[in-house]
């Protein structure tokens, strides 16, 4: 392969968030970065730094496939996948709208696994790294935001299970 540089792909890189901050940190560390977010316009500052940006909506299988196609077309294989995109929600459990809570799980849990599975062939090839961005609340309950806590705990356990498989 022409590039000896390691390549990282990060989800959820809208500016102001940790995805964008990670993109800049990896970029500064000399790693080739593919920053992704639903809209490219949310990452103009990253492109200005010379970071590659791609559109990726982790809730859309079509968008995930299109993103991988774009990488393949450029003969890029990803060494490090950072599952960073996510959201939060707050409500006492007694007032919880379960449809809303399920939507949060769709984003914070099932979409993360969907992205990981899609990138697995590349990661197997590169013997790569999967980074799942969870939270301290995956182990420490903060009241009134149980859907978020539970989604992060679920991802922490998926991460633990993944390493054993």
């Amino acid at each position: 392969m022409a590039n000896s540089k390691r390549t990282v792909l990060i989800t959820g890189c809208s500016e102001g968030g940790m995805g964008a901050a990670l993109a800049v940190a990896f970029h500064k560390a000399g790693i080739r970065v593919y920053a992704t977010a639903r809209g490219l316009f949310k990452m103009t500052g990253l492109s200005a730094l010379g970071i590659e940006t791609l559109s990726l909506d982790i809730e859309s299988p079509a968008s995930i496939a299109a993103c991988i196609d774009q990488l393949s077309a450029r003969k890029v294989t990803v060494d490090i996948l950072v599952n960073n995109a996510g959201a939060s929600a707050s409500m006492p459990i007694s007032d919880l709208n379960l449809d809303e809570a399920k939507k949060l799980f769709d984003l914070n849990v099932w979409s993360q696994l969907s992205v990981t599975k899609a990138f697995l062939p590349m990661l197997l090839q590169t013997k790569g790294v999967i980074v799942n961005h969870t939270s301290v609340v995956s182990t420490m309950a903060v009241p009134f935001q149980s859907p978020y806590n539970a989604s992060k705990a679920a991802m922490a356990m998926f991460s633990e299970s993944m390493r054993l498989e």
Partner: protein
Amino acid sequence: MADSLICDYCRLAPFGITVIDLKTGAVSTNLVANQKANTMISLPKDSLYGIAREAVESAMRNDKLANSGMPADQ
């Protein structure tokens, strides 16, 4: 909370893939603002917590955390 960042290093055992669970703490990001924009963040009228509405809604909005997290670029 600023230094409450824990990395769990693991390995997708037989296939040589490393799995990292990045557990971050309070960081100033878009998370809270996005949540305010996209989700219902006040208690319903008949909530069991109505009597403590202000305190609970303040916690739901992460008022005390929103501006006290470490910057994302640290």
